[in-house]
């Protein structure tokens, strides 16, 4: 168990900056998720912590110990790789025991720990098999088991679920979260899947082009994204964005999108005073676009007319792809909606949950 600190960490590969001045403190026993699109530097950040890449600048601490020049084997970490990286020539038991044997742990202790980890993961009957005789899900468990037996102070996981089918991924996601609670150890997890990040992380660090965009709890990231990138990346379907002009007065302020004009609630207006007459980016999540007939009571709804382009029935809800002017946006509405393809339809924007961003800096206006 240990905290982890990235202190102004930079990693360059030639002219490419993979990680750019990353500073983040990860508390002991925290489950931190690095999330971002491919090439954003999340895996490199993890590999820097593992000691598999050398830092260009900055410092990394595990607990109070500076580990910049410490070999991976001496960092007291364990890592689960995307490809699982099980040793093909060893049995499951030997795969799990390998790290302990290298550390000259007594045989009885190795046996106890391997069997205990196997029991936790439900792979006791697989201990004599070779990795090639296992299914994807079983391999993934063995990789986890290999990490668990080491009893490391930090667990590193590099997209460990991406090779599993959708159903198994959801199941394993929950099991990993449970494992974190059980082991009470620091977990650092890398994924490109925002859903995984939202469901597992106690905090999420969103990266883009090697730069940390925002670190916060899943809820805070969702409700108060710091910039357009985070707002668009977190949440599925993604947030709708419109280029609008702030018009009206301080008392009665509107966002004019050309084909629609919505009123800003009075308590949301003050941060926009300086933007009167200027263009900003207005964001609204699909679930905040309602079919008026089934809109929850008491919302501050602003009507917007649009044409229904596509409807997607998801079972418990319907995604409406709507067009206003040349702009397409998505609404996530009640499945009983009367909206049909090709029809003009009026939806309500729940302005209580509106998001506004500076057009130039792309930062949230607060």
């Amino acid at each position, binding site marked *: 168990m240990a905290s982890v600190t990235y202190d102004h960490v930079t990693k360059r590969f030639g002219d490419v900056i993979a990680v750019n001045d990353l500073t983040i403190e990860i508390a002991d026993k925290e489950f931190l998720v690095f999330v971002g699109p491919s090439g954003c530097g999340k895996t490199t950040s993890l590999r820097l912590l593992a*000691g*598999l890449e050398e830092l260009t600048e900055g410092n990394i601490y595990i607990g109070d110990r500076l580990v910049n020049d410490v070999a991976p*084997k001496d960092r007291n970490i364990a890592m689960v790789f995307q*490809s699982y990286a099980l040793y093909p*020539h060893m049995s499951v038991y030997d795969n799990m025991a390998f790290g302990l044997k*290298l550390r000259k742990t007594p045989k009885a202790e190795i046996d106890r720990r391997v069997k205990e980890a196997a029991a936790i993961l439900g792979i006791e009957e697989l201990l004599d098999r070779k990795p090639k005789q296992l299914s994807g899900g079983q391999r993934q468990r063995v990789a986890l088991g290999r990490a668990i037996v080491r009893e490391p102070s930090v667990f590193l996981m590099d997209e460990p679920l991406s090779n599993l089918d959708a159903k198994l991924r959801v199941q394993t996601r929950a099991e990993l979260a449970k494992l974190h609670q059980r082991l009470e150890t620091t977990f650092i997890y890398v994924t490109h899947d925002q859903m995984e990040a939202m469901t597992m992380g106690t905090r999420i660090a969103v990266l883009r082009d090697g730069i940390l965009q925002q670190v916060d709890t899943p809820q805070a990231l969702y409700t108060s994204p710091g910039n357009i990138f985070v707002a668009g990346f977190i949440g599925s379907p993604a947030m709708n964005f419109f280029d609008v002009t702030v018009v009206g007065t301080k008392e009665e302020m509107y966002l004019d999108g050309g084909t629609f004009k919505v009123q800003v609630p009075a308590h949301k207006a003050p941060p926009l005073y300086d933007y009167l007459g200027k263009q900003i980016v207005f964001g609204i999540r699909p679930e905040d676009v309602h079919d008026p007939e089934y809109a929850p009571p008491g919302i501050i709804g602003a009507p917007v007319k649009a044409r229904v382009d596509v409807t997607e029935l998801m079972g418990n809800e319907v995604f409406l792809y709507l067009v206003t002017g040349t702009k397409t946006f998505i609404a996530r509405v009640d499945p009983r909606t009367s909206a049909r393809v090709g029809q003009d339809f009026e939806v309500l924007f729940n302005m209580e949950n509106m998001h506004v961003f500076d057009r130039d800096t792309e930062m949230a206006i607060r």
Partner: protein
Amino acid sequence: MGAERRRAAETFATVFFLVGRFFPCPFTPLISTAVASLGAYGLTRLRWRGANTFSSLILVAYLMPGIMMLIPIYQVFSKLRLTNTLLSLIISYPTFGLPFATWLMMGYYSSIPTELEEAALIDGCNRFQAFFRVVLPLTKPALLAVMLFGVTQAWSEFLYAYVLIYSEDKMTIPVGLAQMITVDVLPWGELSAAAVIMAIPVLAIYTLGQRFMVRGLTAGAIKGGG
């Protein structure tokens, strides 16, 4: 009939006597395999300036005909007083066997995921332990292929053995075979018998090892291959 039998027996005795001179055979592949496995690992896995250039140079050396190196090698060996010794063959054979072995091993290493070594490094290995305990056991087919090539090459090599060795008691089988021809007299019976006997070990080795040979040669050709 009796005379023919005696002659046949003498021929076999001569050939078996020559078989005893396969001295360079086990040594050259051992040297080639040891050096190639370590060298190829350094070239494919360790990041150092000039690794790519060096790899290309190895390919150039591999493409160079062995005969081109014969004269310089002869000159060097005669200065070192190594000519007419079996040691000269043991040293010279890897010079043209090694580039091929290194190239083959490089291809094989490229097919082994780097994550395996990284997992070993995190598990508690240093570089050498990761190489010997995780990577090397996975390269068995390639190692065997390299060994088999080395053995067959050393077994059948003629030119170097012909030039570097000139006393009869040190001649290798291919040279010994050639010595059976005197001017324009070709003892077909003895030559054929000797050729058959000479082919037996190679045939046996290939029959036993062909599975590994094919696997070694096609290593890295397809994803997940090898």
